[in-house]
């Protein structure tokens, strides 16, 4: 365990020293400021707009980091051969993967928290006071973080067996597909045979359902979110991540490195 943590600490340190991340976070904060401006002009739904835009910004930035850095976690090490000296340690390959994963997730958590703080500050500026129902935004942000965890896991999986470019494309592709999963399930096209419909239904359960994490409507309108949903989404994410990382470990453990 301590070995995993060692790798994680280092992965976190690497992310922190990467200047690109700061720029992205800054950009997100900028968007939140813009959201305030736009909110002022949109008669009487300023908080709705601000929360929507703010959450979108946090989600988008987080996704960019998750995909690009996630793919690089393994690819960069293989390409630059920094991996060789690390694997010469008494360290299992899966421990290495897990540590990298934990490090990036931690980084994302910190970034997201920073952007969330920015959003709450903006809310405070506009509303002049925060009420209990605003905590729904926290849940929305937690869901964004869960979503990012899953994206990182997928990025790592793909980067274990394809080139970095393809890994980015596949991860992005699965994310987009995952947004439409619920639509896939209820496909009502009349010219589909029953078998085709079943096929799509099966696919819809295998693909990661990223729509699960979208609670922007509730957050924007300060409507409550069931505790059960929080639990289920957390379990879903943990289970899916385990599957993906397990597969990645198996692939990575047999891979000939350069």
């Amino acid at each position, binding site marked *: 365990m301590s070995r995993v943590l060692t790798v994680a600490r280092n992965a976190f340190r690497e992310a922190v020293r990467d200047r690109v991340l700061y720029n992205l976070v800054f950009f997100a904060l900028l968007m939140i400021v813009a959201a305030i401006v736009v909110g002022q002009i949109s008669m009487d739904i300023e908080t*709705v707009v601000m929360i929507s835009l703010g959450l979108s910004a946090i989600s988008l930035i987080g996704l960019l980091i998750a995909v690009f850095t996630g793919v690089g976690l393994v690819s960069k090490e293989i390409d630059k051969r920094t991996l060789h000296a690390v694997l010469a340690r008494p360290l299992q390959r899966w421990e290495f993967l897990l540590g990298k994963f934990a490090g990036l997730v931690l980084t994302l958590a910190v970034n997201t928290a920073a952007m969330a703080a920015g959003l709450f500050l903006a809310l405070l500026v506009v509303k002049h006071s925060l009420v209990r129902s605003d905590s729904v935004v926290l849940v929305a942000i937690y869901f964004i973080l869960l979503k990012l965890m899953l994206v990182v896991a997928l990025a790592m999986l793909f980067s274990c067996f394809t080139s970095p470019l393809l890994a980015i494309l596949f991860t992005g592709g699965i994310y987009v597909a995952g947004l439409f999963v619920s639509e896939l399930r209820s496909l009502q096209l009349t010219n589909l045979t029953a078998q085709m419909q079943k096929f799509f239904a099966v696919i819809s359960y295998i693909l990661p359902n990223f729509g699960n994490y979208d609670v922007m409507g509730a957050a924007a309108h300060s409507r409550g979110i069931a505790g059960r949903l929080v639990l289920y989404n957390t379990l879903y994410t943990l289970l899916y991540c385990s599957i993906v990382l397990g597969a990645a470990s198996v692939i990575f453990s047999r891979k000939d490195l350069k």
Partner: protein
Amino acid sequence: MKKGKIAAWVLLLLLPAGFVGLWRLQRKISVERDAMHQEQDEVLVRSPKLMRLLTGEYSPLAADIYWTRAVQYYGGKRLGQDTNLESLWPLLDLATTLDSHLIPAYRFGATFLSEPEPRGAGRPDLAVKLLERGLETNPEAWRLNQDLGNVYYLELKDYAKAGQTYLEGSKKAGAAPWMKVMAARFLEKGESRETSAMLWSEVYESSTDESLKENARINLQLLRADEDIEHLNEIAGHFATRFGRPPHSMREVMQAGLIDGEPLDPAGYPYAIGTDGKARISQKSPLFKQQSTYRRPF
């Protein structure tokens, strides 16, 4: 290597179990989410002027996007059998403000804003507003006169205004000759089945949008069905005079030789005789349900 191989096989065997777990969790999540009544904010920025400012020279592109969203929004609501169309007006308002020459948007809005719930938004006033803007910025578009006239005729029952706008339209270059004819009918006869049929016929011919065409087609079918039923009721009356009682079924009427063959409604289903002895659309016909959701033609 051996340990690694064992681990790989174990993971492979656990995989289906994992996916089953995901499946069950997913169902629980879906239940929770459905209970949440998610309201998607279709229109975040409500100020068309602001959008115009923000999009600058790309306004027509933004207009197209809003227009597409409007169509998807409408389609999505219909599919999900959700009757709340309150975002339709803002979407169309935005689309036409950003691009005042977006004729399809005006035409779409004319029908689906004005028609009563559940089929439309039930806001003929907004439809009028939209069309007036369209006519102002596109003075040569006689089709919009047609659409505006239809709104006045069908929803607002203002036959004078309907005739007036049809007349204006008939004077524009390229206007179809029946515009003048329809104008006269409105002004003279007000509402009539024949007029309505002609109206919907023209709409059906001229629409390129599938939803509009479908809408017109069903209205036409219902009108025809109405006519058929009137005719059938006449025959039922003949039956009553001859046999001293209203008919119990269509077969009785057929057996009495009062009609040739089984009368079918425009959807191809046979008409039925109700318990009151009057003809009506069969419950099996798709027109039956549509009858209640579409405007009751007279």
